């Protein structure tokens, strides 16, 4: 056991580091916010923590500073951003990730240019990584519970709906944006103080692919999906030794296939299974079956529903918030 542990230590550490990042994307997508910004904040966290610790800061304060700063910056940035319509938000946050690569490459001595930072002091044990991942999981899972959870899922279902029940949509979206950024920064900080290096490409396009794959393959409807996805994507390359340099190609293909055929991811598949099995389980119990019988006339909405949908004068586009 322990020899297995030591020979796979890098993977285990990588997995724990990726969990907050996958969660950061998951909470954004779960609330219907098209944002890739947290992946940029991963870079901010990694470079920031690296630069600070190389200048003598202790690891924890440096990490905390970067996480808090990222959250605050993201909150401020989000004011104009959350007003953007979906595709524009996706575009701008994607651009944000790409531009950080440029900044890192041209940051001179501070960022170490194209090579990036080397020899960042190590400051994270596996225990620390585990603790950080657990904290991230707990915080994110609490976002899915009770009133907060309902409001965030509501945003995805219909922004007009959540506003009409008294949820301050703007502030909720901004908060999600900030939390997502802080999680990204956390992940980046963990990375740099575990592997002691970061380069401009490590927060670039390939990271977007990897992270999206993690979040989407597991299923964005819950933190569990992000964790499942992270586990799968971390261990996939070791299962199939041939993947090697084609890793991101495989991720790309997997991502496309999942989006096409199972947009709810592994979690969605599990839920679907459960739904098929659950009635049988309930039938087995004496009392539960009656509930189903009372359902009104079966079948979907009447055919004119599409036409009505058009008639309503509050399309998502013109909604103010």
């Amino acid at each position, binding site marked *: 056991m322990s020899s297995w542990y030591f020979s796979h230590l890098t993977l285990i550490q990588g997995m724990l580091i990726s969990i907050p990042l996958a969660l950061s994307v998951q909470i954004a997508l779960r609330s219907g916010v098209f944002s890739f910004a947290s992946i940029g904040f991963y870079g901010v966290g990694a470079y920031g923590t690296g630069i600070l610790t190389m200048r003598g800061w202790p690891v924890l304060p440096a990490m905390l500073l970067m996480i808090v700063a990222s959250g605050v910056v993201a909150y401020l940035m989000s004011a104009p951003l959350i007003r953007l319509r979906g595709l524009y938000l996706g575009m701008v946050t994607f651009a944000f990730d790409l531009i950080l690569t440029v900044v890192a490459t041209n940051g001179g001595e501070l960022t170490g240019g194209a090579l990036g930072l080397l020899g960042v002091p190590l400051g994270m044990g596996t225990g620390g990584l585990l603790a950080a991942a657990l904290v991230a999981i707990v*915080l994110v899972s*609490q*976002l899915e*519970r*009770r*009133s*907060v959870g*309902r*409001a965030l*899922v*509501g945003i*995805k*279902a*219909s922004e*007009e*709906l*959540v*506003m*009409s*029940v*008294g*949820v*301050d*949509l*703007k*502030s*909720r979206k901004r*908060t999600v944006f900030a939390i997502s950024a802080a999680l990204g920064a956390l992940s980046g900080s963990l990375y740099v103080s575990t592997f002691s290096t970061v380069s401009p490409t490590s927060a670039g396009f390939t990271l977007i692919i990897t992270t999206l794959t993690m979040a989407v393959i597991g299923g964005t*409807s819950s933190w569990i999906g992000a964790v499942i996805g992270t586990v799968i994507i971390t261990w996939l390359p070791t299962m199939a030794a041939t993947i090697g340099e084609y890793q991101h190609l495989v991720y790309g293909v997997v991502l496309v296939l999942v989006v096409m055929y199972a947009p709810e991811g592994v979690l969605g598949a599990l839920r679907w299974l459960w739904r098929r099995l659950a009635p049988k389980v309930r039938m087995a119990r004496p009392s539960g079956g*009656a*509930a189903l019988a*009372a*359902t*009104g*006339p*079966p*079948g*979907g*909405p*009447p055919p004119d*529903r599409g036409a*009505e*949908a058009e*008639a*309503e*004068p*509050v399309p998502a586009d*013109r*909604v*103010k*918030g």
Partner: protein
Amino acid sequence: MTHATARTPEKPAPAAAVPSLDVRDAAVNLGGVKALDGVSLTVESGRLYGLAGPNGSGKSTLLAAISRLLDLTSGSILVGGEDIMRRSPFQVARMGLARTFQTVRLMPQFSVLENAMLGADQSVYGSSFLRQWLMPWWTRSREARVRARAEAALERLHLMDLRDQPPLSLSYGVQRKVEIARALTAEPRLLLLDEPTAGMNRTERDEIGELLLRLRNEGVTQVLVEHDLKMMVDICDHLYVLDSGHLIASGRPTECIREPKVVEAYLGRGRRAAA
């Protein structure tokens, strides 16, 4: 039942010093179409108003404007005497306004009960995000209260048997009932209903009609949009009729629908003549 008993004894319909809702010269342009054009109307507390009109006459637009989901091009709207034109939709909701949508808006991931609970979240939990997020011990008792309110509302709509179902597995009419339940869970003072009975059969409609009357007697002010004119005549205290964005009639329902203008609006164009 909590809903009914909690409200009626202490709160008889307040004497209508200030109208619950006051729409003044409201106009809305949607992509060149004048969806509303100089509409003025008042809604007094504790009464049930009908808003009728043929398809495309601007009924939903007016409800959207009142709930602030849509900006007026000109004019103003007052709720309880207060101008709401600078308020956000969520602030208007917090003033005690709840609504249903013409196109059902339910969260497919959640059960019927959870969908209904969304309506009460704001008034029970308040707006502090951090508390709701990070203080499970604080939210526990509130969650129970929200659940009780949602269950009471579901009870009123006879939906308790379906509480654990995912809403998309239900028929359209039942989904509409869930929407109404969600609005009731908010325990609103002003309730806007956009075609709540579309897709329902006669019996179900009558049930909803009775429910609205009971709500009225509990002091809830309501604005009801319906294509079922018979239902409007049966239950409404007052009827407003829109046509092409103009208010063409206002008055007691029975008299209102006989006015030539209204007859023309409905029959003259051969739309929904049978209603």
